[in-house]
């Protein structure tokens, strides 16, 4: 099997109604329609989901590892920002 020349697509699958689509991996495909079909075959064969999103991998902008300190560490010493002082109502799933 030779290397693919097709673009890479990131795949997001929604597991149940009302919850966010979650990143599950990626597939190669020539276009969006085929990317959805390939994602269906690779990631949802065992009833993993009810909806699929595909996004061209090149369209994703990401923070860089060097930004980690400036971006994320300042919140480490601000525990009052964390939602740990609330009680989660019973019956709320997927939080």
């Amino acid at each position, binding site marked *: *099997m030779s290397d*693919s020349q*097709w673009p890479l697509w990131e795949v997001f699958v929604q597991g149940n109604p009302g919850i966010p689509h979650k990143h599950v991996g990626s*597939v*190669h495909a020539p276009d969006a329609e085929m990317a959805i*079909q*390939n994602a269906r*075959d*690779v990631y949802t064969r065992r009833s993993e989901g009810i909806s699929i999103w595909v996004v061209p991998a090149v369209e994703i902008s990401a923070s860089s590892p060097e930004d980690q300190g400036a971006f994320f560490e300042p919140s480490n010493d601000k525990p009052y920002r964390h939602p740990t002082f609330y009680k989660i109502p019973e019956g709320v799933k997927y939080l």
Partner: protein
Amino acid sequence: MNLQQAKFEYLLRLGDSSLIIGHRLSEWCGHGPILEEDIALINIALDFVGNATSLLGYAAQVEGKGRTEDDLAYLRGEREYRNLLLTEQPNGDYAATIARQFLYDTYTFFLYEELKSSKDETIAAIAVKSHKEITYHLRHTTQWMLRLGDGTEESHQRLQTALNELWMFTSELFDMDEVDGLLINEGIAADLDKVKAAWEKRVNEVITEATLQVPVTNIKQKGSREGKHSEHLGFLLAEMQYIPRSYPGSKW
């Protein structure tokens, strides 16, 4: 011919076609043009083998001679096989596989649509389950027809050649005989004239959209109903049946 014999024969036709085309697709395992397509084809192959298991299992039950679906699959010779000639044609290049699959998926899409309302409950139940799978198969192969047909000059040419070579096997899909007549009267089998009209319309639409030509031929290959197959089936069965015939009754 009584109703039971007709039903057994009819189930063999449906089941054998699924088994043989499923086996053909499984030959792509590890050889697909790209990983994602390899997985897609093998998924489809598994759907067909699963469908064949249900149909041949029911055939064995209808026959009532104590045979199982495995006996029917692995211990019949090619003259006893009833699969359509189209289904046993070799994989060829990827265009040939897609063309064969598209012609057959369109056929099963409309055939199983009819069988969903069969008065035989088991056949209707198998058809309901299979039709969901077939809807996906057809979507997949239709997308490839459009992309290869309307792709590069080479992909267009290869797909047109494949269609031209397979066309002589398509008229057999709609042949009806005593078996069909008997079962249609009972509301069990599908009327293939109806399937043919829908098939022709859809196939012509897709071929045209793919910028290809609908082939024209006077050659009509047939014979699967009498167990007369092309030279390819014997080799396929030899490979598929080797283990159960060499080691009868072995389990793992």
